[in-house]
């Protein structure tokens, strides 16, 4: 019966065992806590900073140091806090449009942002201007501690600067000739403002993209371009006609002159020829003038008279030739 153990005994024995066990484990509890603390502590002690980052360390909220890329140690348990800042990365902000999906062929959001992109130009016209700003963190400490919303500043001040600049140019200048100038000036001005607010942001580039007249006005702008083309066309056509006529006229003028020269040669040569002929004839005639004269006269008469249709030989005493002619009209002959 001795080794009979009532349930109470059994329970008591078990309780004793557990107590003993608890005593044994009790020795290890502080060590376990310490181990946990160390594990968690180590986890909060070692940290790494990526190659494109800078770490900003705050001890109890106060900025103490910045760290370069690599593996580093800090105090654990919230004593020191690290904030990695990407300083190499270039960020982009878009104004007046949004890229829905960037890629080889980027897709842009269909929605328009007229409140962002519509602006007044110096000649009180309205333009739809779209642009981008690329920036990066130039001073992580300022970025974290000086302004609450650095990105908001970039957006708001970009609009401020762009609107003010567009207000100093005419529609045509913003559309065409002064785009570069506006981009350049806007970048400088934006940087000035961001520096003034100590945002710790550096503008890498600011570029005007699409600048367009508002949709309702676009056809009129196109008409101007067409008119410009038309002007060029008209001028070209006029020059074409000019080029067609003038060289030809010059050629014809030369021809006229040449013809005159030909006439001149002809005339002079003929004169000379006739003069020579006369002189030669005259020289011979001089030798026997009367006879020659007589001969020439008779020869001519002989040649000429047979050709005439009718010939009348009259006595000088005949007072009038009319009767004769009347006879002639009746068909009679003498």
């Amino acid at each position: 019966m001795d080794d009979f153990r009532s349930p109470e005994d059994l329970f008591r024995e078990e309780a004793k065992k557990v107590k003993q066990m608890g005593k044994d484990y009790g020795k290890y509890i502080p060590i376990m806590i310490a181990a946990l603390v160390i594990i968690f502590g180590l986890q909060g002690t070692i940290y790494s900073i990526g190659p494109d980052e800078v770490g900003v360390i705050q001890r109890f909220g106060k900025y103490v140091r910045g760290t370069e890329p690599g593996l580093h140690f800090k105090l654990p348990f919230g004593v020191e806090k690290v904030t990695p800042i990407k300083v190499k990365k270039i960020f982009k902000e878009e104004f007046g449009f949004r890229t829905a999906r960037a890629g080889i062929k980027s897709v842009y959001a269909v929605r328009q942002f007229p409140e962002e992109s519509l602006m007044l130009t110096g000649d009180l016209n309205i333009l739809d201007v779209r642009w981008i700003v690329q920036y990066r963190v130039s001073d992580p400490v300022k970025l974290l501690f000086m302004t609450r919303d650095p990105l908001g500043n970039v957006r708001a001040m970009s609009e401020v600067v762009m609107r003010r600049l567009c207000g100093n140019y005419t529609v045509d200048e913003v559309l065409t000739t002064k785009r570069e100038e506006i981009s350049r000036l806007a970048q400088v001005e934006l940087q000035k403002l961001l520096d003034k607010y100590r945002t710790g942001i550096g503008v890498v580039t600011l570029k005007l993209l699409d600048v367009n007249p508002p949709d309702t006005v676009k056809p009129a702008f196109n008409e101007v371009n067409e008119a410009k083309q038309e002007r060029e066309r008209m001028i070209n056509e006029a020059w074409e006609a000019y080029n067609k006529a003038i060289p030809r006229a010059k050629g014809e003028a030369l021809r006229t002159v040449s013809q005159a020269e030909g006439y001149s040669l002809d005339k002079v040569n003929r004169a000379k020829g006739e003069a020579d002929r006369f002189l030669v004839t005259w020289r011979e005639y001089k030798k026997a003038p009367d006879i020659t004269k007589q001969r020439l006269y008779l020869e001519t008469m002989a040649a000429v008279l047979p050709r005439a249709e009718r010939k009348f030989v009259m006595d000088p005493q005949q007072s009038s030739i009319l009767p004769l002619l009347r006879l002639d009209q009746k068909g009679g002959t003498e």
Partner: protein
Amino acid sequence: MKKFLHIFITLAIIGGIAFLTGVVYVVSETKQVVITQFGRPVGDPVTTAGLHFKLPFIQQAHYFDKRLLGWDGDPNQIPTRDKKYIWVDTTARWQIKDALRFLQSVSSERNAHARLDDIVNSATRDVITAHLLVETIRDSNRILDQKEEGKTIAIAEEALERVKIGRHELEKEILDRAMVLAPQYGIELVDVRVKRINYVKDVRKKVYERMISERKRAAEQYRSEGRGKSAEIKGQMEKELKLITSEAYRKAQGIRGTADAEAIAVYAEAYNKDPDFYSFLKTLETYHDTVDGNTTIILTTDGDYYKYLKKLD
């Protein structure tokens, strides 16, 4: 080892209790703190970052932002001095300068924004209504100066007004007006800028119409320039044509005249030797040419040719 561990754990426990009860508190670089004791402020606001101490339970820490904060107003419809209705959207930068006063007067940023709405919007309204539209848009008279230098710039009548102070100065004026009112809330207004300006809808429609008519005018000018230039070229062409042909004619006539003169001289020199013989020869020659089948010749017996018909001498 064990001893070190014990110290460490004790310290950790004390630190934990200190934080939990509020004896120590942390001030971040971005924050400033006002300590109140039963609602009454104690000492100056804490603006340096780091670990700070206060009495537990009875003292309370109020955190405020120390950084530059933004404010963005709702767009306002404001008429300018020349009665143009425009939407003006301003943005401002401000900072909690006096945390204690801020706590007492507005206590939260939301309230502060409401105050800024009042201050900045009314200053904006005052300044915009006191100036012409062009002053709110342009910063300089660059365009007008260029126009005066003789560049052809089509510009609307209403835009011809010269700018006296310009947008930048206008923003300064708004800031100056608003800045004075801010310190009572413990706020420093750092900057006010006009972010967006645009015509109200009705006006915008009219502006579009005006832009269209302006463009049409420009287009017409180009066309008429084209026509003018074309006519000019044609005129020049006609002139040159006349010049060329007349010059050629003149030259030709000169050449012909000289030739005629020379011929006359040659003839004269030759025929002068014996004018009688010349006239005799020439007359005979003309008989050849003038007498043909239609000719009727009447000769008298007095003439040399038929004189022998009458009598033989």
